[in-house]
């Protein structure tokens, strides 16, 4: 039970393509609300103060820290979590992460995939340095990072091969 004096707010937003309206605790972060109230537990809460990147989600199309946005700030916004993230770049990343052993416990994986997908969508260079920079705000405590960089590079190459193949037809 919430204490009576706990300030609340009403919000309405899109979550993973569905309109959602409800009451939020004013001091609750967006990621906590998604997990606790909507059962969307794919975004993880690691450090809860903006350092680790496990809580990444898309807010109006860009990747943000879900722990540094208040749930009330999602009012009127379009929220997308790893549960609904799709598209060829996400598929390519999922396959490459499995193939390259780019995860062990999986806690950081949703945040990694969303952040890497932003790089692949941007169509920028895929040097190891560019991938490292892109993922510099995502902690992993299992892999030592090298397999993750391998996987993102492989996903980018797979996408390029697909695009090349499609263009050749």
């Amino acid at each position, binding site marked *: 039970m919430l204490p009576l*004096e*706990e*300030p609340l*707010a009403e919000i309405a937003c899109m979550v993973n393509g569905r309109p959602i309206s409800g009451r939020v605790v*004013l*001091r*609750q*972060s967006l990621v906590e609300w998604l997990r606790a109230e909507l059962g969307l537990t794919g975004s993880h809460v690691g450090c*809860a*103060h*903006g*350092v680790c*990147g496990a809580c*990444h989600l898309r*807010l109006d199309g*860009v*990747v*943000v*820290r879900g*722990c*540094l*946005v*208040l749930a*009330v*700030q999602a009012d009127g916004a379009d929220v997308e979590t790893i549960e609904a993230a799709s598209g060829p770049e996400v598929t390519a990343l999922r396959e490459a992460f499995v193939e390259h052993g780019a995860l062990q416990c999986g806690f950081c994986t949703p945040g990694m995939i969303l*952040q890497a997908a*932003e790089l692949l969508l941007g169509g920028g260079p895929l040097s190891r340095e560019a991938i*490292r*920079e*892109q993922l*510099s*705000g*995502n902690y992993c405590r299992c892999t030592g990072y090298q397999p993750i960089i391998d996987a993102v590079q492989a996903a980018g190459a797979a996408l390029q091969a697909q695009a090349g193949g499609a263009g050749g037809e």
Partner: protein
Amino acid sequence: MTPARFAYLRPDTLGEALAVLAREGEGATPLAGGQSLMPMMAMRMARPALLLDLNRVAGLDGIAVVEGALHIGAMARHATVLAHPLVAAHAPLLPLALREVAHPAIRNRGTLGGSLCLADPAAELPACMLALDATLVLANRAGERGVAAVDFFQGLYATARRADELLVRVEIPLSPGWSPWFAETARRHGDYALAGLAMMCRREAGRITALRIAFLGVEAAPRRLPEVEAAILDSADAAALLPRLLSPLHAEEAPAAWRLHLAQVLLRRAMIGEGRHAAA
């Protein structure tokens, strides 16, 4: 990691936001990108009574050239400034520095105004404002006032902003013929800098004829160093002056002597960098 309770207002116009500040003063805390304020609230280092969310205030995030100056709104996100063609054309120091600011997800949300008003000693953008000779424009209910960047930053997390004011934009004078240089040392890419240097300079016939420099992460707040700038214009060993002129911050993981050493290394690199740039 749950913040203390607060009240929350989300005005749609600057007028409404300034009216709240006029009424509440220090009782109200502006919320921009939240990339510094939210962590401080989570750790209860900040306990704002009233959060004044600026994210819906119209007209605070524009980027435009107006009468010989590049104007950047306080709510312009780091990622937007980093990729903006007008910024690349008229203030290329900013993209050089912004690449070192935090990480992509934080740059998607964090704002120029938030970084300047926080005035973290290790932040990149305050030092850039000095090198760019920018004016910071503050507004309250009575109107606007411009504060030169050299006067805005006043110490550790301390600025010239009054409790009833919002930073609304910065104005960067266009400076054709000037070129930027930026570098910093950090433990990992995206971490706050241990020491960094922002520089703008003008060269005529291969010689530096004018320049502005500001260190970050070295002292409590960025400042201009006229003696150092004069020594560079005289082609003297400016780095040798730094031990006498700087009062570096001290911390266990980055002692004052180490920051001073880094400042000297960065300044010497800036000089070599300029040489290479000129020859290219």
